[in-house]
């Protein structure tokens, strides 16, 4: 493997200043499961790798029970997300996605921040978080800023991060009562596979009825970046959530998707599967709301 120097800062400020002082030849690394492969294959050739793994407070999950805000550190591994009982019970849509990212060996090491920063169109980690209206806290030489996750991605491998900036936290806002959310990764194999399409749906119902108060439909691999299908979301709001209305929303989402042909699958099939899976995930949302009210 190409030679590089591996730097281990202990604070965010130290990491940022190391990045500044080494300029274009430096890059951050978290779990490293993608970075090592890219260095070995010659796609990346950094002179300095700045590890973010040893910075305090970056690998924690925190649910603030007063505000209801859930905070995921950028260095949290997929495995931690997968095993968290808070996520399994309160944010099952995140569990749906992370349990099928890579293998156990990858999930033990790879981080959610790294997954987001890589900005691949198929990023399974991003879709549930977009459906949950997550924001990212970003730290750099000019201090901290916050970006809605849906606005973080600019294209394959492209994000709004400026040079030397670090994703420190993923902030999931308080969830209303009667929220249901579900994600389906759809691929040809059950494991070790990138999705043909990824569909995340979140539905909030009004008190005492099945009328939709808020809807989120987020898609992966349906465009160069993760997207939300706004007309399908708008269609659902104010309507009773039934198989029929979800069917209609699925069709609208399929129309809005910008799927394309690739080695993994053809556009027409992806579009059909968007329609099918939006409906299925919508029904799963209803089921999850029902289950949570039974607890």
């Amino acid at each position, binding site marked *: *493997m*190409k*030679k*590089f*120097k*591996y730097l*281990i800062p202990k604070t965010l400020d130290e990491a940022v200043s190391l990045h500044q002082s080494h300029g274009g030849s430096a890059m951050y690394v978290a779990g*490293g*499961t993608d970075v*090592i*492969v890219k*260095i*070995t294959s010659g796609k990346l050739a950094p002179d300095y*790798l700045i*590890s973010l*793994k040893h910075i305090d407070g970056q690998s924690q*999950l925190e649910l603030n029970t007063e505000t209801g805000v859930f905070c995921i550190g950028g260095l949290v591994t997929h*495995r*931690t997300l997968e*095993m*968290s*009982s*808070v*996520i*399994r019970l309160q944010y099952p849509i995140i569990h749906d996605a992370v*349990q099928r990212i*890579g*293998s*156990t*060996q*990858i999930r*033990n*090491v790879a981080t959610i921040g790294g997954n987001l920063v890589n900005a691949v169109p198929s990023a399974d980690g991003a879709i549930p978080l977009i459906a949950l209206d997550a924001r990212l806290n970003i730290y750099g030489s000019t201090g901290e800023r916050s970006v809605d996750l849906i606005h973080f991605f600019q294209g394959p491998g492209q994000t709004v991060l400026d040079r030397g900036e670090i994703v420190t936290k993923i902030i999931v806002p308080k969830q209303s009562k009667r929220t249901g959310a579900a994600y389906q990764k759809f691929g040809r194999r*059950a*494991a*070790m596979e990138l999705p043909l399409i990824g569909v995340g749906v979140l539905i909030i119902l009004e008190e005492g009825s099945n009328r939709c108060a808020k809807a989120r439909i987020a898609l992966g691999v349906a465009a160069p970046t993760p997207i939300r299908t706004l007309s399908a979301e708008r269609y659902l709001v104010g309507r009773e959530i039934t198989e029929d209305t979800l069917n209609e929303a699925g069709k609208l989402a399929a129309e809005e998707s910008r799927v394309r042909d690739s080695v993994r699958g053809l556009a027409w099939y992806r579009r059909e599967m968007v329609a099918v899976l939006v409906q299925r995930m919508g029904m799963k949302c209803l089921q999850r709301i029902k289950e949570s009210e039974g607890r």
Partner: protein
Amino acid sequence: MSREIKLMLNGNQIFVAIEDNWTLLYLLREKLGLTGVKEGCGQGECGACTVIVDGLAVNSCIYFAVEVDGKDVLTIEGLAAADGTLHPLQKSFVENGGIQCGFCTPGMILSAKALLDENPQATEADIKQALAGNLCRCTGYVQIVESVEAVVDKSSEDINVVVRETGESG
């Protein structure tokens, strides 16, 4: 850059000089002679290079050697007892035909060990999920899953596992 790291390797504390660009696989196999750690794809797809770091199965081909500084590393060489008595998982793979060419076996057994340490009552589904990142091109997986299941059926005391309450993590 060269630096010295300290780690527990198969129960022994060692100090070793490494280069920053070494993977854990390279350190274990090429420098420490632990050739039970296999390189298959070199990209984290096949799991042949699986070792256990601080209780978790990882792909050593995509893990920086520098990151095991201060950690506990277990390879297949560290699994049998000092007198050569095989670990129950090793024995079970032999008895149940879970091995053919043997190339994937160290990784399979270590992935299975990490699973059973965490969940001694693993179901067939748990086993398949835990071994999803370990590819075998010989056996077709049936005997491998059976080899692990056979160990689950024994008492956890027999296989010397760390019992953890479910739901304790996270």
